[in-house]
């Protein structure tokens, strides 16, 4: 960057000094940039002081067939049919209210968004359908819901 002769030219060969300048400035900038990036990274926490997004939700056979069960302490619906068991988020995709079950599926009490039984949005301001959460099977036979990882709607855990 330091062109001491004042005739900055495009195709001019880089002198040792140019290289040195470039190296000094760029490595220093890299140091400052990287340090900043590292500390910005620290603002992203991996362990949170809030209830875990991954939790066990009991054995699948405890859920009645073809019924929607709202978990008491989590915004998640557990549904089971003869194809398998799956979890649907109970958080409205509009502004985060907790939706309730209705005759046609789910309905949000805040702004009237409505979803069909598979969580697909059918009316109201909600921009997206209710996500289906990933469901896996713990070794002790309980289902594990990961309420941070959405899967394709219709993907049920066969039990």
């Amino acid at each position: 960057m330091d062109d001491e002769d004042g005739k900055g030219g495009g195709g001019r060969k880089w002198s040792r000094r140019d290289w040195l300048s470039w190296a000094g400035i760029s490595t220093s900038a890299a140091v400052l940039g990287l340090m900043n990036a590292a500390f910005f990274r620290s603002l992203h926490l991996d362990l949170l002081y809030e209830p875990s997004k991954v939790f066990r939700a009991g054995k699948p056979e405890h859920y009645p067939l073809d019924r929607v069960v709202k978990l008491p302490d989590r915004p998640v619906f557990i549904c089971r049919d003869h194809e398998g068991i799956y979890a649907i988020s109970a958080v409205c995709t509009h502004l985060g209210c907790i939706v309730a079950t209705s005759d046609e599926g789910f309905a949000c009490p805040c702004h009237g968004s409505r979803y069909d039984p598979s969580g697909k949005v059918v009316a109201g301001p909600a921009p997206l359908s209710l996500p289906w959460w990933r469901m896996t099977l713990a070794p002790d036979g309980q289902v594990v819901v990961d309420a941070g990882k959405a899967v394709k709607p219709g993907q049920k855990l066969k039990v």
Partner: protein
Amino acid sequence: MGATVPTMLNQFLDNLRALPGNFRRAVFRRGIPATDKERLASVFANIFLHMHAPRTKKNTLRPTYTWGLGLISFYLFLVLLLSGVVLMFFYLPSVDWAYLSMKDLESRVYLGRLLRNLHRWAAHAMVATVFLHMLRVFYTGAYKRPREFNWMVGVSLLCLTLLLSFSGYLLPWDQLAYWAITVGVNIAGSAHPTWLPQPGGFDIGELTKYILLGGTEVGQEALIRFYVVHVIFLPLGAGVLIGVHFWRIRKDRGISAPDPEEDGAEAEEKEDGSSRPKRKRKASDEVVLTWPNTLLAELALLMGTLFLLNLLSLLIDAPLQQIADPRQPETVAKAPWYFLGIQELVSYSAFTGGVMIPLVVVIGLAAIPFVDRETVRVGHWFHNRGGLSWSLLSAAAGLVFTWVVLAWGIRTGGLRAMYPNVPQIVVDIVNPAALIFYFATGWHFVGLYRFREHRAATLGTFSVFVVAVVLVTVVGVYCRGPSWGFYWPWESWPAH
């Protein structure tokens, strides 16, 4: 009167095309400078670079003149500022959570351990570099007219640095922190000498302590007070004073440098006979362009500081003891190391060592440029050869005297042990701490008598002060054990 619509549209498109360049020019005014004139202008035009004069005296760039200590202190301050702000995201100033916050930095926060170590070691390092910076400024005589005021600002910054470090010491809320602060605050609590009347129970020391702690012992109130002071008031104060400090450097025509008129030979010697054409005015030979010379030196120094600090933080973890337990004093409750000198003096007399001497020392330091007003040979280490030998002799004398006086205090337990009924006021007047102080004061007049020069006298006193500080601190750090008993570093402390 408007132009035609197509013209306007064309102009609009042209403006859009020229936007990046215009935007850059709006922000930076000019591109990367290519000529000296442009370089001068760049320093002028940029708010950050404008802290510098466009030209820098060449002599001040010699590493052996400044050792970069002031700048390193400033870099450390910046590191502390930035790491401190990030730490604030993860720290809760509550007695229930503060300690867990520390543990979280270790296990939960990305690079948290490094972050905490950086902050801790930078704080300790800054205390050291600021002190060394003061030594440099003193021994090169840089405090002299017209820089008296900036010297005083510097003394205030030294105090602020100590206070910043001290107020941050409590925040981890571990045993180390808790008992160090308990001891430190009790030093402030002894500000009111026992022999002074207390009208209406008024005790300035107790009052200070009460205000400082928000109560009578270190607890939640104290924690939040130290926190607020540590993250708001002191950094703000230090930031403003640093600004003043820098601004004064510019107003005082840059930092001090050996005067080439007077010291021509030395200046000539430094010239390397490169192909530079001689300028008309001799004085201009000793200035160089700030861009790039000073800036490059500063960059190199920044990278060096960052490297050493990072290395230290990777290798050594900041201490963290058990969670604070007010019922369980540490076997040895020690203040942070930079206060152990004071704690050592306090062990002889709380009032004299803890309040009187620190106060007089700070006032005395601030008064140096007004005592020594001879402005010859500014910028020369130790004034001259005679100054160097007098400084060394004074240091040796100070070392011996401090050693003897400490030995007296440690061996006999001082006046109180020799004459148990002696009143407190006499103990406050005659004790190792006070004796060292009398010696340093007396030494000033020895220097005056011998050299008939204020500069020489000041050099002697200051040297005595420096070795006394160092020795007393070393004794406090390495030679004090349980109940503040004396143990050589190689002796083991008795269990319980």
